[in-house]
């Protein structure tokens, strides 16, 4: 955890979190006038190049200040991604641990059920689900939760099973601890740690995919909602004539993803015994 790269990752993530928080409380602090909807300037709808201090990142169609839009969008993306991973993880862990706990048919059933969700690559799957539900951001989130929980379920189940076999669980059993209590006191805590790492690794990915979905046309329902992917698709036609309209929003995603990945790697190295140096 003390490696410079992971520290940098932490810094990036903290910065983004800070932006999101500020944007949530006092958007004016970072010069965002309206945090909930982008303000078009219909006087000059053509994208303008970056100009300090008025439009540090330039503007995009229809005359929206990119800087403000991105700042606001960061809050939206972070919030939804976090929601997706969290809910997905909770569902996954619960079902995975239950499967491991009961074993037998319930286990089979749950895992087969999870397999169904894993039978289609995540993006097409999300599209399909979105097609059913609708194209609001909330629908996108649900779609992605559906994509994500089976992964956590599998992972959690695997971890739980290995912990269940470990000697200290057997010792607890011999100590007269009830099997349910064993699950709560021993198995779950020992499962959570690796899952936590996984979550932090996924958060970066989820932000990407979330934006990707909005890019291919989800959430076009309310056009002026600040969202990074939507911003890029908004600038799509202007990409060649006015590169900045796609460049800056993409940058925002890229940097966050990098930060999250760095942090995740750091965490894994710190928590994974395999990476600890062993001598005999």
């Amino acid at each position: 955890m003390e490696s410079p790269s992971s520290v940098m990752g932490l810094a990036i993530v903290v910065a983004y979190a800070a932006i999101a928080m500020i944007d949530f409380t006092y958007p004016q602090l970072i010069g965002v006038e309206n945090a909930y909807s982008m303000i078009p300037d219909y006087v000059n709808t053509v994208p303008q190049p970056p100009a300090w201090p008025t439009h540090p990142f330039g503007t995009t169609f229809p005359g929206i200040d990119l800087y403000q839009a991105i700042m606001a969008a960061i809050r939206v993306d972070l919030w939804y991604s976090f929601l997706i991973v969290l809910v997905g993880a909770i569902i996954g862990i619960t079902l995975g641990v239950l499967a491991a706990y009961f074993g037998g048919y319930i286990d089979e059933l749950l895992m087969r059920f999870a397999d169904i969700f894993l039978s289609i690559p995540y993006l097409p799957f999300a599209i399909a689900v979105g097609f059913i539900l609708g194209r609001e951001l909330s629908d996108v989130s649900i779609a992605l939760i559906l994509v994500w929980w089976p992964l956590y379920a599998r992972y959690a189940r695997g971890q739980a099973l290995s912990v269940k076999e470990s000697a200290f669980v057997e010792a607890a059993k011999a100590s007269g601890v009830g099997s349910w209590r064993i699950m709560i006191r021993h198995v779950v805590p020992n499962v959570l740690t690796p899952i936590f790492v996984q979550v932090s690794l996924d958060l970066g990915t989820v932000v990407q995919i979330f934006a990707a979905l909005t890019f291919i046309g989800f959430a076009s329902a309310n056009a002026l909602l600040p969202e990074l992917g939507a911003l890029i698709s908004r600038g799509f036609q202007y990409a060649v004539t006015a590169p900045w309209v796609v460049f800056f929003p993409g940058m925002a995603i890229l940097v966050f993803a990098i930060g999250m990945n760095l942090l995740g790697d750091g965490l894994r190295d710190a928590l994974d015994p395999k990476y600890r140096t062993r001598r005999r």
Partner: protein
Amino acid sequence: MKLSQYVARRLVILIPTFLGLTLIVFSVTHVGGPQRLLGEYINPHSTVPADVQQQQLSARFHLNDPLVIQYFYWLVAFVQGDWGYTQTSIYSGRVTDAIALFFPNTLVLAILASILSVLIAIPLGVMSAVRKDSVVDEVTRVISFAGYSVPIYWLALLLIIAFASSSVCGCLNIFPKTGIVDIVLVGSIDWYRSGISYPTHVLLIDSLLHGSFDIFVDTVMHLILPVITLTYGIMAGILRVVRSSMLDTLNEDYIRTARAKGLSEKEVVNVHARRNALIPVLTVVGYLVAYLLSGVVLVETVFNYLGIGYWTTQALLGGDVGGVMGATVIFGLVYIFSNLVVDILYATVDPRIRY
């Protein structure tokens, strides 16, 4: 037990998964209710009023029966290859025809990308693991890191800006922006009808078969940017896995043994480490395929590349049932079977697995 039996058993195990897939697809088509489903069948110019038409059609398609029955009818039709119609900005007609048109293109893109990425990623990953913390390693890690952090569609856009337009520099405006081939070239050619080339449906091959190299070259030019984008994305993933797996392998006891035998580092890596390191890589290929196919959707969308991915996004926007359904099915099948292949491969290369 013989391999054939193993394969058979795996196929049997696929059945529930496949049924699950059909369930999802079924819900895609039927949750929207009859209006959405029958949109393409209703003829606005007919004398019969629309709602009446819908009544008749609903009856014809058993849409008034309980869902279970509907599912059954649908499944039968589905298995018989009657997949309904699609109506999107890029294609309207039978879903099956659309697939015949789009799938080959997607396949070309995906296969090229995966081959390329494997060819690059494996040697690079092995090398960076062997020369841990060297400059090579550092560079490789940065590359792979950027690779799985970058939004792939954004990368595609940047490439277009850089190499398919003069916005950076006129001299770099080398490649065509979008599409699979310049329509002007294929406009009046007998073996290229309504977007489908014959006999193989793969323009890349057909153009060579008919010896028209200009078309071939043009197709290649159209392929380069999408392939690069996709390759980079997947390559990064493989690179990362290969490297870490190779590092683990190099810490194994049998590597120590190999060194104690007096083998040179080269022999140790080539004979003892590499194969062992690549086997665990196979286990994550599933995720990589998922990534690949998802990437295909985005890349195709950005490059307006006439493939399943582009089709499905268009269908999504246009609220077209057939397109989404067809694409979902295809992606699902490809994904399932690629995983099957990986499992079988895994069982054959590793003597420890008694299948």
